[in-house]
């Protein structure tokens, strides 16, 4: 019933953001990422956004050149996770202003901060954009 990992991967298969909510060794992570990304990239627009891989269900959505992948286990509501992915994208868009892949790459820590505000320990914590961005904007102002 929880999110196991959130990945942002570009069209060439390079990972841009990787947040894991469970322990996995480094080699396992890379192997996992490689397999899942290959599966998702191979699918077309018409097909389902849900892929089953080992014991996870991976829900993905493509925004321009980035794939947002969320791996869940158990009986999670897939459509709700799709909504959540959209919420992440909108929040980042609000913060960066017309976010694109380069923004995320060059401000990696900010992307992580945003994710941390939204999800904790695999559970969705906050979905209100104002609340999420408040601490981050505060920190930007102070530094």
């Amino acid at each position, binding site marked *: 019933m929880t999110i196991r990992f959130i990945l942002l991967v570009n069209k060439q298969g390079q990972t841009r953001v990787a947040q894991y909510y469970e322990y996995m060794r480094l080699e396992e992570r890379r192997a996992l990422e490689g397999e899942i990304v290959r599966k998702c990239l191979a699918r077309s627009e018409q097909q389902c956004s849900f892929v*089953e891989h080992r014991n996870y269900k991976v829900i993905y959505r493509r925004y321009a050149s980035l794939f947002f992948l969320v791996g869940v286990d158990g009986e999670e509501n897939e459509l709700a996770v799709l909504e959540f992915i959209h919420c992440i994208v909108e929040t980042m868009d609000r913060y960066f202003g017309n976010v694109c892949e380069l923004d995320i790459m060059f401000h990696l820590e900010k992307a992580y901060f945003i994710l941390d505000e939204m999800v904790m320990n695999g*559970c969705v914590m906050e979905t209100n954009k104002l609340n999420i961005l408040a601490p981050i904007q505060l920190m930007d102002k*102070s530094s």
Partner: protein
Amino acid sequence: MIRNVRACKTAAEERGVIAKECANLRTAFKENDIEYRHRNVAKLMFIHMLGYPTHFGQMECLKLIASPGFPEKRIGYLGLMVLLDERQEVLMLVTNSLKNDLNHTNQFICGLALCALGNICSSEMARDLAPEVERLLNSNNSYIRKKAALCSVRIIRKVPDLAEYLLGPASGLLQDKHHGVLLSGTKLAIQLCETHPPALDYFRKQVPTLVRILKNLVVSGYAPEYDVGGITDPFLQIRVLRLLRLLGKGDPDASDIMSDILAQVATNTEANKNTGNAILYECVHTIFGVEAIGGLRVLAINILGRFLANRDNNIRYVALHTLIKVVAIDTQAVQRHRNTIVECVKDSDISIRRRALELVCALVNDGNLKALTRELLDYLRAADSDFKADLTAKICALVQRHAPSKLYHVEIMLRVMVEAGEYVTDDVIRFLVVLISNAPELQGFAVRSFFQALRSWRGQESLGVVTVWCLGEYGEMLVNNTGLLQGETPLQVAEGEVVQVLESTMKDARATPTLKAYVLVALLKLSCRFASCSERIKWLEEQHRHSLVLELQQRSVEFSAVLARHDKIKATLADKMPALDEVAYRSRRADLAPDAAARAAAPTGQPSANGALGTAGAPGAVRAAAVAPAQAQVLADLLDLTADDSAAAPTTAAAVPAALLVGCWTCLEGSVRLLLLLLLRLRQGERTCCWTCSPWAMHPHPPLLLQRPHPWLLLQWTL
């Protein structure tokens, strides 16, 4: 730095750049450079994300956490969460800093600490810091409360004993107004209910509160900050629905209170956007999870029906997924959507196809079997190969379980083998063979239809095997057109043609050694019944005397010997197999699954002196012990016969083998060889040692489909 990495064109170049950066970072850390420490750690995180090892930076994170400034602390905690995990020992050093930060006055710093704790704490840390977190649950600040709640979720997961202390604060959270707190609070409640069953009763009292929250969300007007696509805070709605599901399970009173609001959500939510659909989906799940009244269930199934008809693949997938669960509860309602589901089996998306196939199998009953199987068979022709295997297995399982008549079973299996013979498994073939041998009225039909199918053989092994077996057993039925069923047209097949077909099958490049072995046996059997072709058959059997495959060589030699020298017993040898015991076979198949492990461990080839089993029979030995007394009597008689003084006249010797043959006939392959051995020995006047023979019926795997000779038989043979 990032720009440099991006500029790299090859992986090796990237590794070089990263290595240089790591070296720089290591120097910087050693020099204790305070100013740029947080930037260095940020670089380290980037490198870690690319997949390179970054252990050397862990202490830096700790130092950052200990520093007083907010940005540094922030990066430090982030580094902590990304680079470390709960199993590292370095984590223990952080506990003190965490404790200080938890007590900090600044809400954001406190929040940071909670966040870090929530993501990676281990059970010792959880135990240490639990009292702090509990205190923070009651704090005035909603930001803190929200984070503390989720942190507690993790604590409970790690240390379930602490659950009782958190019950009180948790229910307090549910009264809150702030949506973030509510979201976390409900999650905490869900976690408590899952790990700590007494919590269920505690929270059931909160059901009216939850219903009220949901009502406010559904009915309220436009609230800009929580609005997603026209619906107010869908995430909270979904979470509350899930909590209601947990609370209502098995409790009719609570379910009663919820039914109104469930109906309201189900009817009022707009279904044209994904958000609405997500809520409806959760609602449907909840309706089926609680003790809902019939009307609500009908509503839920209607929603699912609408989902199925939706063009969006995601929605259809989700509907199919839920319907599988619903089928167990209410099959009738799902039957109405059968046609749509069958359409989904043919969809282009593999996830949908798989789900639809599972659902179809769950839906099958005796009434709709024929229609459904027809659809599935039509699709089998068009399916792609990885799906074909699944589909074949499912069709076979369905037919085996629900076939209305044996004739239907045989027909369908024939069609399946023609379309997808490569994917049919051995036990399906076995089942079919048992069935045919027990249905004398179908034998003629079976042999005729399989023979016709073999004429257009494309190399499917299963089809070849079954046809050859049928030809061997019932070849004369084919030639004489016996046992014609109503509506069947008689075939004009000459004996020579049958032999011709067998010969070409054997010569075919696609025939496996197994198949060739069956052809040899079939030819032997036919040699007695087709008198005109016996010369040709004899010649064919001799072809494989020098084959490199042991099984083929052995059979060829033995059968040629039989054909050349032992005319008297040839007829008995080549007689039909007796009907295989169907009931015992089915029950043994049911036993087979747990025995498979034991069988694998059982040593093969242990000849034992007294009526014991053949190779794979160690677990069967238990069963055989029960069967043994009856069989042992027969065997004892036979053994008595063999112990006869060998000075007896050759006629007695000839008669003896006949009796033995009859008794041990059922073991098709192995006994033939042993009997020949016995024959030859008796002719020469030697005594034979007692040997063991497993009456075929006792064998866990009918030797018809043996792939290799019994090792113990080979042992005997060498004796």
